[in-house]
């Protein structure tokens, strides 16, 4: 554990921006998101959590996969793989955990996604512990916590005028080269410990038994009602750090164009609309069920992990206050019934 004075932070960030693309929380009109910064003073570390999760650094809202030009005899292709070295600075431990979950999707036995994986490989994660977790956070229910280190390379713990710096990986150590920071003394360690103990996550969900309930509740009448107030927008999925669905379209003009990948969401009717006109998820009920099932059942089936980190963004951003904690509680409260009934 090392010690970093707060006045040293700016110089460190400035130094990092020279060797890396640094993405840090930036406040724009009260809306905090992870943006590439040119200098350390553009970033704010006084924030609860970003509006849009830092997943967008590795898996952007929209990206060009490749561009093409059709000539008479052949097709010319230009691939757009982003190989810049990056640092995501000041992300919350829950969001760091989301990258471990996303890894399952973009790197598995069947698929390897070079766009995500190249960025992932070249990105160092510097976390910032949550001294005051908001009331909508329930990360501890999902095996994470306000100072969890899983997935991070460095973790900053704010102890007032200084940060206690936990070096977690060699890549994290590299970011500190030439800094010569002192080791954290007893007092600082104790202060960090106190901060950690004071950061209570008050909100909880019960995951125990949830998966087995969902296993048999695809046809449960609960789905008829639980989605009713949902408007069918993508505010929850686009601000979710683990949602990863996308759409690919060609944007062409004449004989040249680009293949573009953009975020897409299971809450949209067109997401599953077939070319034939048939839609296997014709109403909001099926779409809402899919979102819940994917997070708490299908992802568990596929990767043995729950696709939620308890960041609370979907709760804060839902235009109708449809609260995932209440949805989980309602499912937990249902009688188990067999699919065959």
């Amino acid at each position, binding site marked *: 554990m090392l010690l970093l004075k707060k006045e040293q932070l700016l110089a460190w960030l400035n130094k990092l921006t020279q060797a890396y693309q640094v993405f840090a929380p930036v406040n724009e009109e009260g809306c905090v998101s992870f943006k590439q910064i040119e200098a350390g003073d553009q970033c704010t570390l006084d924030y609860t959590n970003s509006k849009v999760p830092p997943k967008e650094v590795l898996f952007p809202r929209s990206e060009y996969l490749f*561009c093409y030009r059709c000539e008479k005899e052949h097709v010319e292709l230009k691939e757009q793989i982003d190989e810049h070295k990056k640092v995501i600075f000041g992300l919350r431990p829950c969001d760091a955990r989301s990258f471990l979950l996303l890894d399952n999707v973009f790197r598995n036995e069947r698929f390897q996604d070079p766009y995500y994986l190249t960025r992932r490989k070249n990105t160092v994660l510097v976390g910032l512990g949550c001294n005051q977790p908001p009331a909508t956070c329930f990360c501890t229910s999902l095996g994470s916590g306000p100072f969890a280190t899983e997935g991070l390379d460095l973790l900053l713990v704010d102890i007032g005028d200084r940060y206690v710096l936990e070096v977690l990986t060699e890549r994290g150590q590299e970011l500190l080269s030439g800094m010569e920071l002192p080791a954290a003394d007893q007092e600082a360690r104790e202060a960090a410990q106190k901060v950690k103990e004071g950061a209570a996550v008050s909100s909880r969900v019960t995951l125990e038994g949830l998966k087995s309930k969902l296993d048999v509740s695809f046809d449960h009448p609960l789905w008829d009602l639980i989605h009713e107030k949902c408007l069918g927008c993508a505010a929850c999925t686009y601000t979710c750090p683990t949602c990863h669905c996308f759409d690919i379209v060609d944007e062409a003009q004449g004989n040249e164009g*680009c293949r573009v990948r953009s975020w897409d969401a299971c809450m949209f009717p067109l997401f599953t609309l077939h070319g034939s006109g048939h839609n296997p998820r014709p109403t909001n009920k099926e779409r809402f069920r899919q979102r819940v099932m994917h997070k708490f059942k299908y992802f568990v089936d596929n990767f043995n992990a729950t696709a939620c980190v308890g960041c609370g963004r979907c709760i804060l951003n839902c235009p109708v206050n449809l609260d995932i904690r209440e949805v989980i509680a309602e499912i937990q409260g249902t009688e188990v019934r067999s699919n065959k009934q």
Partner: protein
Amino acid sequence: MKVTQRLLETLGIERERLRLAWISASEGAKFAETVTEFTNQLKELGPNPLRTSPGVQEKPCSA
């Protein structure tokens, strides 16, 4: 038309960029005249100012 022109203006796009003309199939000369005139007017106005506004992302292929 009027509604759309006024909207365009608020967006910072000149209302002269949108025009509606009723031309019958028998009025070939009038059609050609109108299109030529409109094309000249658009050329004079230059590219759509929104396209050159800051914040517009360059497509990698357009390089």
